[in-house]
């Protein structure tokens, strides 16, 4: 152990003598670690941000009318889910809750403000199945509407506020404000008005639903429910599209995960550059110290001991650069997500913070790998040749 302390001490002294180039090599590692960790934090925060903004409903099967594309035109855009199809969906779904939904968009007026909003028509009994209440109450009958959290906040809507819907400016009264839910794959209520199915049907004069949402009680059954609906309704021809929100959520998160990996890979390039820098410093160190290596070997230093001295040098550069880089990564990650996402709380998530030790491990590993060849080269010198070197 003590001879290791000896070679560790020699490595430190050599780095101190050549402090400028050692510092530059360590800065390379610092930049590499900061790049890889900050990009990792940013990518992970992006995933978390997307996960948060998407609703947490991973437990639904959504059925929509099938729209086929023939050449440049689509057919069936006015298709809706009929009562017969709804009944088939209910049968295929077993004892899971089935919620038929009317969905559309319209012009609305709130006071003097005119804006566009999504409008959903849902059976009042089904609304608590899909949505949570923030203030006021759920719909009880055909009159009144509920509004999403964001549209309420941005337009100062409160329980009792009046909204005028459509060109004919039919007045509806807000009875409840929904809890914020994020963007969903079934419905996105935050900027929407939720009316009763009866009101929607009468107001827009539609027959048939725009989508049917099946809330699956046991997540393990989601594929079975999806396949069962598909088998029931699309037996002869494709009548409906059936998809589950869990799979979509997974696909989106996987995509953002890939983006995260890609950004980390960009950071990794700078770490490779740092590795080349360390390799260069170590090779210079070996070449300048041929004679010293010869002396060490001639007075009884084994090859492995010479090797360890040079590996310690690259290890010291890597560890010191990685520690400083790790600290700066925290600040870099904070800055990156503050600028890109305007939200810094994601930095403190475990999956974000773990990017820092990952980056540091990469930094140390790169340094050691970069030092291996020079160390081997030094230890492989014949003492007699090294001693003759001027």
């Amino acid at each position: 152990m003590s001879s290791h302390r000896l070679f560790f001490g020699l490595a430190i002294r050599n780095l101190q003598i050549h402090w400028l180039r050692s510092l530059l090599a360590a800065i390379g590692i610092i930049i590499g670690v900061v790049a890889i960790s900050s990009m990792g934090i940013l990518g992970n925060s992006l995933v978390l941000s997307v996960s948060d903004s998407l609703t947490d409903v991973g437990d639904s099967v959504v059925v929509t009318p099938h729209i086929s594309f023939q050449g440049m035109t689509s057919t069936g855009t006015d298709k809706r889910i009929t009562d017969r199809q709804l009944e088939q969906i209910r049968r295929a779904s077993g004892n899971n809750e089935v919620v038929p939904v009317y969905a559309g968009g319209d012009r609305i007026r709130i006071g003097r403000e005119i804006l566009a909003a999504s409008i959903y028509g849902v059976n009042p009994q089904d609304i608590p199945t899909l949505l949570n209440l923030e203030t006021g109450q759920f719909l009880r009958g055909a009159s009144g509407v509920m509004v999403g959290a964001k549209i309420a906040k941005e337009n100062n809507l409160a329980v009792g506020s009046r909204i005028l819907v459509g060109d004919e400016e039919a007045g509806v009264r807000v009875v409840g404000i929904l809890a914020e839910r994020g963007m969903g794959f079934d419905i996105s209520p935050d900027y929407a008005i939720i009316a009763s199915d009866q009101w929607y049907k009468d107001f827009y004069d539609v027959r048939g639903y725009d989508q049917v949402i099946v809330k699956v009680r046991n997540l393990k059954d989601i594929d079975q429910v999806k396949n069962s609906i598909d088998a029931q309704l699309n037996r002869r021809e494709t009548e409906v599209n059936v998809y589950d929100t869990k799979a979509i959520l997974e696909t989106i998160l996987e995509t953002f995960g890939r983006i995260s990996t890609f950004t980390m890979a960009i950071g990794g390039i700078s770490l490779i550059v740092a590795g080349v820098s360390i390799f260069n410093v170590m090779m210079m160190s070996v070449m300048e110290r041929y004679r010293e290596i010869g002396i060490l070997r001639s007075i009884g230093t084994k090859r492995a001991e010479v090797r360890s001295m040079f590996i310690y040098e690259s290890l010291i550069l890597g560890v010191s650069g990685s520690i400083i880089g790790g600290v700066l990564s925290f600040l870099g990650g904070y800055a990156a997500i503050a600028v890109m996402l305007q939200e810094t709380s994601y930095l403190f998530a475990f999956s974000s913070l773990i990017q820092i030790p990952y980056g540091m491990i990469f930094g140390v590993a790169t340094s050691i790998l970069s030092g291996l060849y020079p160390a081997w080269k030094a230890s492989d010198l014949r003492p007699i040749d090294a001693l003759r070197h001027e």
Partner: protein
Amino acid sequence: MDTQPVIVFTDVTKIYPLDAGDVVALDHLSFEIQRGEFIAIMGPSGSGKSTLLNMIGCLDVPTSGDVIIDGKNIRTMTDDQLTELRRDVLGFIFQQFNLILLLNALENVQYPLILKTGETGCTDRCKEVLAAVGLTSDLWHHRPGQLSGGQQQRVAIARALVNDPEIMLCDEPTGNLDTKTGTAIMQLLTRLCREQGKTIVMVTHDPRTAEYADRVIMIEDGRIKEEA
């Protein structure tokens, strides 16, 4: 006392293959050196005396023939075994001193001792040896660059002695020193041979330096020309 010779060369040849043709540095060389002998090897430049010293120092191996150092045939030894032999049995003193520039005088002497014992706290022995070679304690913490040639050579001798080697190999030990310092160094080596029974093998050009030796081996063209 062990009466076996400490160094035995038997029909040793060393050939350096070069593009311009092979160079025979040692040509079927045979001789023995007894324990406690002080040997001077002399000869003109290119005669093969440094090759001979390197071979005794296990820094080089023969092309053919056998070199036995302290009872071990170096041709059959691994690199690690040769390194251990250099560390434990041999002490080197070079013309250029060859101290480790990163270390001070005391640390230079400590270095081979730590390699051998694995202990870093072994300063007493090093101080004892430094004092024995005449380096005053105020210089022990000086780096080689802060020492004169004579002082550096004393540190080098202390470093060679610290592991109590059987054989000391000296390559022109006074070559870079003034006459007065050179004389002092030679007296020190002679004392080590006489009082501590060290075997000393010294390569030199200088006949006055060779006068300190018990026996002089003259080399020319890789062969022993004469022994006196």
